[in-house]
């Protein structure tokens, strides 16, 4: 049987999700047996091909060049999957979407006029059709391998879409929100990280983004009851998935 071709591509990102592929460690070789890893700049020196069966895309769209790139990747891929918060939700760099770009440029670069970027950082799904998305900042290596195996055998990947709270309970981790009064995004956030922060006694800050149809306002009210300022409550969501939380919240209003 001919192995399916995978291409791994990068837009604006920290490379952490691509690293999740390398963090499969020895399983990386199993992956290379099952699939033909045909494009992967970070670990492979090979030029792009015309066609891929599966394209994994890391990173958000922040420049004109990336806008063209993602269309090209879509054209070349039978199945396109975003990996991580940047590609799926715009990433932490989407914080610029709520700010003044010129100001931002000036704050970082001595010659801001040399820097040419889009005023926003947007998820891949705003530019092309995507077949599947994996959330997380970073994605979980196990979820990635589950997805790739599932695609191989032909089934829907077993990635939970329920709340992080459920993972807390499944793992027997005491609730930081209820027992400590610490703000935690768990109730409106997708499971996927394994409830890491609560397991360290800290509230979730939303690596895996809002779960579908999350009731964000209700949680924000709860934070206000806990004497958190409205501004701080919003800042809690304005992190790696800021764009997705804000959008979910808007959708909820309508």
């Amino acid at each position, binding site marked *: 049987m001919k192995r399916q071709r995978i291409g791994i591509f990068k837009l604006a990102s920290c490379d952490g999700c691509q690293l999740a592929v390398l963090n499969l460690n020895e*399983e990386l070789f199993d992956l290379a047996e099952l699939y033909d890893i045909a494009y992967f700049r970070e670990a492979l020196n090979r030029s792009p091909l015309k066609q891929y069966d599966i394209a994994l895309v890391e990173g958000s769209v922040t420049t004109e060049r990336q806008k063209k790139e993602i269309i090209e990747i879509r054209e070349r891929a039978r199945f396109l999957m975003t990996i991580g918060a940047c590609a799926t939700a715009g990433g932490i760099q989407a914080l610029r979407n709520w700010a003044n770009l010129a100001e931002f440029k000036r704050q970082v670069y001595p010659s801001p006029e040399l820097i040419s970027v889009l005023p926003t950082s947007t998820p891949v799904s705003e530019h092309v059709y995507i077949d599947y998305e994996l959330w997380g900042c970073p994605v979980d290596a196990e979820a990635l391998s589950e997805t790739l195996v599932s695609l191989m055998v032909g089934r829907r990947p*077993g990635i939970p*879409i329920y709340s992080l709270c459920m993972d807390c309970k499944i793992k027997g981790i005491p609730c930081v929100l209820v027992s400590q009064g610490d703000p935690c995004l768990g109730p409106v956030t997708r499971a996927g990280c394994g409830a890491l922060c609560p397991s360290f006694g800290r509230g979730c800050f939303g690596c895996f983004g809002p779960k579908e149809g999350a009731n964000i306002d*209700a949680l924000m009210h709860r934070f206000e009851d806990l004497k958190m300022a409205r501004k701080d409550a919003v800042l809690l969501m304005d992190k790696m998935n800021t764009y997705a939380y804000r959008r979910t919240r808007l959708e909820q209003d309508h």
Partner: protein
Amino acid sequence: MKRVKIIKEDLKTIFEALAQRYRTIGPKLVHGTVVMAESSFEDIPAGYEDRQGPGSYRLEKKETEEIFSFSPGADSFKKYLCPSSVTSFSFQKSAKGFVVDVPEREGMPLAFIGSRACDLAALSLLDQVFLDGPVRDQGYEGRRKSIFIVSVNCNHPSENCFCDAMGTGPYAKEGFDLCITEIRNWLLVEAGSVEGEKVLEILPHREIDAGDLDEKRIVIARCREMIKKSMKTEDLPGVIYRNLEHPRWTEIAGKDLECGNCTMVCPTCFCNSSYDVLSLRTVSSNLRDFSGVRRRTWDSCFSKNFARVHGGNFRPSRRARYRHWMTHKLAYWIEQFGSPGCVGCGRCITWCPVGIDITHELEELRRVR
């Protein structure tokens, strides 16, 4: 059955005696909450008192000699008897078919120390679900079979307890091997089984008299008085069935996070999902041979896809999912198993991040608008 008086230090002897044959599971402090975990006498958070409210739990150390000064945390028997994630079997698939292998049951049986009356009631509900159906759940049966239960009658009910209204507490009537009532500086221990009596035999103890039993009654009566929460159970399925379109459901949906915490902490919620787990390791590139396991994990009717089928979702809205949960607990369950699925432990109220209170919501439903 045998009843004796012991001093508090003898509890340690009970722990040690049980540890010979059981894994002892008892209350323990983790990150400022009481959890159920493998533990010893020293781990008991003696002298800690909890303050609970809707969506809130705080633990505080008090100046007291009491041992069982706290009420239970989020865990219950469920955590051990129907664990959050179990491997039902492993399989090895080849071109010719597949072979299934059921894992051996794990080693030592479990002894639970510090279970409360409501927990025992919940246990008997779980038994109905897993053992009285068309297929006995073998995993549950195996884990359940040889357990030992030391229950404790509550002295400090939490602000969210309403076992009295549900007729499940505050004191245990049956279903334990030993039952402890803490009375000032001594413990009244009652055996509920032959196994329990055997343990009592090894303890230095004093037989009790009528006066001691009176003391127990006083303790229980005092506890009853401290229980402030209640639930009106009369006309229970009816009141809910008649109000399935009550505007209150929509109001709850506005507040509900559908995070699933209530179902996870409820000692009787049993919903789960099974799925197959494969890994890159175990799949060969010809796709004919692979191995994996079927895993079953807790799931919840609050999960978005819980009622999803080809062509749609039977409960797409938050309103429907909350309504389903509460209706199951307080109405469906009665039809299914003959009693409500709620034992009044109050966990769902405490551990709901926004403090939705099932007793309060039932009251609201009773209000005609």
